[in-house]
């Protein structure tokens, strides 16, 4: 008998014309690892939430969800809380208490467990997830990756049979994300836990998944093993959900079994011949500097450590510059220093060759510089998008996106991508010549990323200089002119995107890792396919 059975599951939100989920039938065996993919709004969250009775939202539901043959709606509150574990996207908001140990105890406390059991379970879980060293710390002091790991650990204390995760690594940097996914894989492999995860990170997830599900407008568009996906989805739009290896394989009309991981991809690519394509000669022009930081030192507290130390950075006018690096390395701090929100205790910061302090009375933020932070929630001050974008009409015209249908919505009700664009629109309303973006691609799906990339390139053509701070190498590969790696409070290396991604072994895109032994410029899947003689994809 299957562990989870979905029978004709349909769901319609109140006031919605079309159902969010339409007639989904699915059987999930115990111990299976399922990856759920699909564009934003395809019904992934709706489906996952239906599997956890406490999180079901208002709406019309038909069909049934059976857990070990019993209807999941008929479970008592305690049974259902412990049988199905749920981890959501935002690491911060899922944490309830102030101390790490208390967070781990919370689930079992709620279920009324004995003291001895709680003590034992905390010890066990802390050892498995390797969180013993920070058991006594305050939850507010943890990094995003640690917080999400804690959320997972806290859910696991109840010993669930099925674990459901809704884009758990969307807010994490790549290193924290792969650590999180490794932990999931270990849980699945070593304890036989059934895992259902919705996520965009194909590279890490697809090679370890038993089955891949793709949702399109509330319907199951694909449901089979990842190996079969590459050939089955070859000429469809769903191909973008697969790994770089599989996409290069499909793009170059590969035959036989599709490669999934980077290693398999390399083996496949080594059998292909590289086409010579003429690249336009780059003209080295001397451009004026838009932002320059020289020997900048910064720390938050007198007795604290330097967050920025001896930092040098030069962003030229009219370029898109990507600053990469792990979370917590000090990239956002650098942005705050560059934007004059924090003062460096030593060194000089110049914006368009003018010192920061020469911009008096907030004139820096009127037509010169705009900084868009990571958390776009705090950009919005009003009740509706209409009021929010009032006075931004010019900026709206510059973006290839129609905000009109969203005018009556509350800014918090927008999807991640829509919110990012609306925030960008606000940032452009002061008509800045230098735009600093902090993690613009965070939590966006592939479509939105491509759209945002187009927007940024369009702004560049209009002469706006863009400094982008990101941990998303794939996104930087799509749109940046130059890239730099941030480490130990300074810039470790800045170079042209192509050189940067070719020379890096770890901090580079999957496509570059697959093709680097054969060719230099294949740092995105599209380029790799072109270079390796595909018809284009």
């Amino acid at each position, binding site marked *: 008998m299957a562990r989870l059975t979905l029978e004709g599951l349909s769901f319609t939100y109140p006031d919605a014309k079309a159902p969010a989920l339409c007639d989904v039938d699915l059987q999930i065996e115990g111990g299976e690892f399922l990856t759920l993919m699909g564009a934003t709004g395809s019904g992934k969250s709706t489906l996952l939430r239906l599997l956890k009775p*406490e*999180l079901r939202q208002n709406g019309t539901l038909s069909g049934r969800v059976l857990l070990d043959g019993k209807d999941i709606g008929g479970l*008592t*509150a*305690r049974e259902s*809380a*412990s049988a199905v*574990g*749920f981890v*959501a996207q*935002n690491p911060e*908001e*899922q*944490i*309830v*208490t*102030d*101390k790490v140990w*208390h967070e781990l*105890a*919370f*689930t*079992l*406390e*709620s*279920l*009324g*467990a*004995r*003291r001895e059991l*709680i*003590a034992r379970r*905390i010890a066990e879980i802390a050892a498995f997830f390797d969180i013993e060293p920070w058991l006594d710390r*305050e*939850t*507010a002091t943890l990094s995003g990756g640690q917080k999400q790991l804690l*959320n997972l650990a*806290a*859910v696991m204390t*109840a010993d669930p049979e099925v674990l459901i995760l809704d884009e758990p690594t969307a807010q994490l940097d790549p290193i924290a994300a792969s650590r999180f996914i490794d932990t999931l894989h270990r849980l699945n492999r070593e304890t036989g836990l059934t895992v259902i995860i919705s996520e965009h990170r194909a590279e890490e997830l697809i090679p370890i998944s038993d089955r891949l599900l793709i949702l399109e407008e509330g319907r199951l568009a694909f449901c089979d093993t990842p190996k079969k996906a590459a050939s089955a989805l070859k000429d469809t739009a769903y191909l973008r959900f697969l790994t770089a290896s599989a996409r290069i394989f499909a793009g170059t009309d590969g035959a036989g079994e599709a490669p999934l991981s980077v290693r398999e991809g390399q083996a496949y690519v080594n059998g292909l011949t590289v086409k010579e394509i003429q690249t336009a000669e780059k003209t080295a022009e001397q451009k004026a500097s838009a932002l320059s930081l020289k020997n900048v030192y910064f720390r938050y507290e007198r007795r604290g450590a330097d967050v920025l130390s001896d930092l040098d950075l030069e962003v030229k006018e009219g370029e898109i510059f990507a600053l990469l690096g792990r979370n917590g390395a000090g990239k956002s701090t650098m942005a*705050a220093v560059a934007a004059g*929100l924090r003062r460096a205790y030593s060194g000089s910061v110049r914006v368009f060759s003018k010192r920061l302090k020469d911009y008096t*009375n*907030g004139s820096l*933020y*009127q037509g010169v*510089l*705009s*900084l868009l*932070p990571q*958390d776009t*929630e*705090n*950009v*919005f*001050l009003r009740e509706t998008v209409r009021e929010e974008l009032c006075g931004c009409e010019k900026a709206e015209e510059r973006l290839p996106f129609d905000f009109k249908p969203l005018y009556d919505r509350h800014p*918090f009700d927008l999807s991640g991508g829509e919110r990012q664009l609306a925030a960008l629109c606000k*940032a452009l*309303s*002061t008509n800045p010549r230098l735009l600093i973006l902090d993690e613009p691609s965070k939590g966006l799906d592939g479509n939105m990323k491509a759209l945002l990339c187009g927007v940024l390139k369009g702004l560049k053509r209009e002469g706006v200089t863009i400094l982008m701070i990101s941990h998303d190498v794939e996104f930087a590969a799509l749109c940046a002119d130059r890239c730099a790696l941030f480490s130990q409070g300074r810039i470790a290396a800045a170079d042209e995107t192509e050189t940067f991604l070719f020379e890096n072994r770890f901090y580079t895109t999957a496509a570059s890792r697959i093709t680097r032994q054969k060719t230099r410029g294949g740092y995105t899947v599209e380029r790799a396919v072109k270079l390796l003689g595909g018809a284009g994809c």
Partner: protein
Amino acid sequence: MRRFEDMNPLCAAFYYLCVLGLTMFGMNPLTLSLSLLSSILSAVLFGAVKGRGHAFSLILFLIAALINPLIVHNGMTVLFYFNDNPITLEAVLYGLTAAGMITASLYWLRCLSKVMTSDKVLYIFGRFSPKLALLLSMSLRFIELLRVRWRKIQDTQKALGLYRDGNLIDALRGRARVLSVLIGWTLENGIVTAESMEGRGYGSGRRTSYSAYRMHLSDWLFLPVCAGLTAVAVVGQVRSTVVFYPDMQMELWNLWGILGAAAFAVLGTLPLIINAKEALRWRGLLSKV
């Protein structure tokens, strides 16, 4: 190693209740000077008060001691006249005693807040009401969260050009907007927290309250010792006579008075005795490692 700080929070709570009670409700110069001495010693050894804190306490002590003789002119022994007002010996001594009481209480309270970390407070509340303990824990987390968020929103809005005019009204209007975003954002995110709680079984029945603290034998011994010493000190205070006005009548050195003072001296230094004993024991154990 179980230092005083590592003992069961109930012990620490009971201990500070006793010393604070004895300090605050008795105007006995003998016990108060003992209390002041031992509280300063405690505070220094626990690292609860550092350089500037001591200076602050000294200033507070002087002010408190000076105010009484300046406004109270009771007492038989006139020392001198200040602005035609008599300054009496009794009022000066009363002022000194009261200042000692206030300063000692503050030192004890600082020790208390140093020793009673949030975990311990939570443990004590959790024993009576698991719900109250959870509420407290969530509030503690929220304070930090709101502080961080306020800063974030403030920075964002500044960089997006919210403050245009640079005058006071503009600044106030901006702050009001920031506050409204803070509240909106917090409520919005509160939904996620609520879902996380419900998904993890909150409200599914009776809660238990977990804590890593246990009652050891030494904790069980500590409580009656503490209570006994307090009782002797109370009797000592009751049996001694302390009258300031109109002329001083002090009877501190009778049998009970001396016993009470001795008991208070032991009580006041009890944490230090425990820690010294543990440190000695640790030396002995270290030689076996």
